[in-house]
């Protein structure tokens, strides 16, 4: 039973993608297949969390080859949480896309590509094998390439060149690192690696390979100084694509870093994790300063992804139970909030006609509901109580204070302050000041049909509600994140579940 269960997060999106492609010419059918598939993925994610809660870590050996010889899919709390959160954003964006993506782009294959992307992401979250992780990264990458250039506007091609170039370099680095890891240990199963890495004679070499993984995953997760592809590309495709990218792609890199640096490379924490901590601090700062210099809605948000990634890596780098718990909690909070802000930027564009802050305005007066929908995730991003971002930042700050890392805590607090500055800028320009062309948002040339308005705002409202719920009713989420962190910091249970031996 279990091998089937752990494979569901991969099977559901792939089957959805195939159905959405072969569903004939009717767009309506494709659309509902897409939404139903995303909802099914969410259900699978919740089911997995429940199952992990009941039975502990779930392991499925593919092809009946016992690990470490075959590929094993492993679902622990972190994996299950990530799948569930992928389902949530997938569902929200799938609904939003119904009113956002151009008809022509839907005909070219938006829906199948979207679900292939989700499949790749979920595959990366559930696999227990390094090389298999590489394969899922590629599945995710190739579908993200195709989604990025869908529509082939000039800016998209331009952004895609940079995105593709840097991500391909990261891919090859990852591959070389996997090769060297195999050369050192003779295995690629993550649990087996946990056992064999301490036996490698030349521990210096292990650290060198660990650094290669930091660079490879660092490009994926947009760490300083490897983040330049992100703000170059994320504002170019349609809003649905931006939103799902912002929610998931970098977070797969973060997930891989968390997995690898809690399970495999823990032999030289003093070096690797301290390096990560420094990188985290600089990443936060550069991201938020970069955002301060921007005047385009989505570009500001893109730079904020970079700065938020810094917080997650900070949690991992502190490498205490509270720190890792904070990192997990932050990932969940960030995925919801950031995707939501991108979705809001799309609505603002539809209502006022541009993403350029200088060219828009007047949203607060004519669309107070949209203004509220912006304020909730924006405040949450900046970390104002009682929203989810407040708790996420609080946990991280506490974790930093606990082990006297005052510098990183000070950086985190300062960056939080600067985030408010950016959000205020968007608020002032897009919502507060009157429209420079004296257009009433949402009327005339920029009017929205009733169907579009509902389809665009419903997912935003849902995600905003989720932020508020996590903020007000924090305990279960904190408990879940704590269990995930416990599993991550005590890999023995993971190893035993996969290999069936007590290490």
């Amino acid at each position, binding site marked *: 039973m279990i*091998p*089937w269960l752990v494979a569901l997060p991969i099977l559901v999106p*792939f*089957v959805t993608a195939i159905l959405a492609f*072969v569903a004939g010419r009717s767009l309506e059918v494709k659309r509902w297949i897409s939404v139903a598939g995303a909802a099914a993925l969410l259900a699978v994610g919740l089911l997995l969390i429940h199952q992990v809660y009941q039975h502990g870590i779930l392991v*499925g*050996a*593919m*092809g*009946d080859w016992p690990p470490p010889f075959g590929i094993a899919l492993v679902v622990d709390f972190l994996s299950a949480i990530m799948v569930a959160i992928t389902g949530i954003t997938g569902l929200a964006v799938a609904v939003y896309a119904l009113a956002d993506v151009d008809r022509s782009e839907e005909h070219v294959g938006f829906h199948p590509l979207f679900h292939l992307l989700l499949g790749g992401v979920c595959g990366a979250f559930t696999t227990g094998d390094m090389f298999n992780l590489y394969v899922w990264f590629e599945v995710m990458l190739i579908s993200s390439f195709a989604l990025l250039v869908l529509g082939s506007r000039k800016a998209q091609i331009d952004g895609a060149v940079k995105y593709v170039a840097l991500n391909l370099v990261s891919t090859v680095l990852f591959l070389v690192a996997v090769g060297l890891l195999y050369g050192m240990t003779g295995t690629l199963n993550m649990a087996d690696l946990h056992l064999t890495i301490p036996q490698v004679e030349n521990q210096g070499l292990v650290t060198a390979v660990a650094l290669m993984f930091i660079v490879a995953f660092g490009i994926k997760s947009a760490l300083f100084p490897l983040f330049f592809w992100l703000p170059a590309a994320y504002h170019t495709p349609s809003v649905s694509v931006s939103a799902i990218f912002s929610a998931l792609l970098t977070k797969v890199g973060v997930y891989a870093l968390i997995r690898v640096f809690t399970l495999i490379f823990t032999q030289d924490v003093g070096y690797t994790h301290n390096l990560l901590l420094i990188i985290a601090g600089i990443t936060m700062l550069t991201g938020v300063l970069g955002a301060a210099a921007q005047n385009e809605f989505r570009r500001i948000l893109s730079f904020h992804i970079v700065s938020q990634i810094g917080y997650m890596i900070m949690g991992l780098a502190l490498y205490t139970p509270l720190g890792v718990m904070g990192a997990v909690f932050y990932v969940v909070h960030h995925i919801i909030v950031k995707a939501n802000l991108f979705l809001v930027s799309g609505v603002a564009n539809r209502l006022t006609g541009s993403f350029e802050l200088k060219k828009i305005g007047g949203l607060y007066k004519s669309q107070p509901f949209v203004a509220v929908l912006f304020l909730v995730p924006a405040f949450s991003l900046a970390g104002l109580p009682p929203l989810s971002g407040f708790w996420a930042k609080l946990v991280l700050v506490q974790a930093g204070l606990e082990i006297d890392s005052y510098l990183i805590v000070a950086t985190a607090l300062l960056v939080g302050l600067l985030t408010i500055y950016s959000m205020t800028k968007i608020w002032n320009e897009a919502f507060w000041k009157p429209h420079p062309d004296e257009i009433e948002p949402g009327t005339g040339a920029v009017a929205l049909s009733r169907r579009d308005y509902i389809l665009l705002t419903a997912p935003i409202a849902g995600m905003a509600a989720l932020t508020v719920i996590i903020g007000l009713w924090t305990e279960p989420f904190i408990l879940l994140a704590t269990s995930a962190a416990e599993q991550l910091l005590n890999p023995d249970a993971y190893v035993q579940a996969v290999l069936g031996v007590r290490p």
Partner: protein
Amino acid sequence: MQSLILSTATRFLTGLMLVFSVFLLLRGHNEPGGGFVGSLVASTAFALYAIALGAKAVRRAVRVEPRMLVMVGLAFAIAGGLLALITGAPLFTGVWLDIPLPGGGELHVGSPLIFDVGVYLVVVGAVLTVILTMEEEIS
């Protein structure tokens, strides 16, 4: 540029290469060959066809949209994995069947072949998409 020699030779070569690619596909499980290698030979055949007779001719010859091939291939690959469901074994476990042939002997077929056919279709579809896009863009 239309070359009579090339286009005449292509008609023979394409067919030959396609047959060879299927041969490679079928012997793949136990001997060198397999879905990917076979599909590369098939893609080379179509590439040659495209160079000699143009992208339109390839589209006519293939009949289906190349991206449809990718998706159908993906469906085959997943179906090959899901076949294990019948025996209750974990996903992607090989399911083998010995079909007795008239005149003695047995045909040993299994789900890995279905998976390989999937790979074959995915790669042919993907390569065709790229080749045809390039060919149509340039000319």
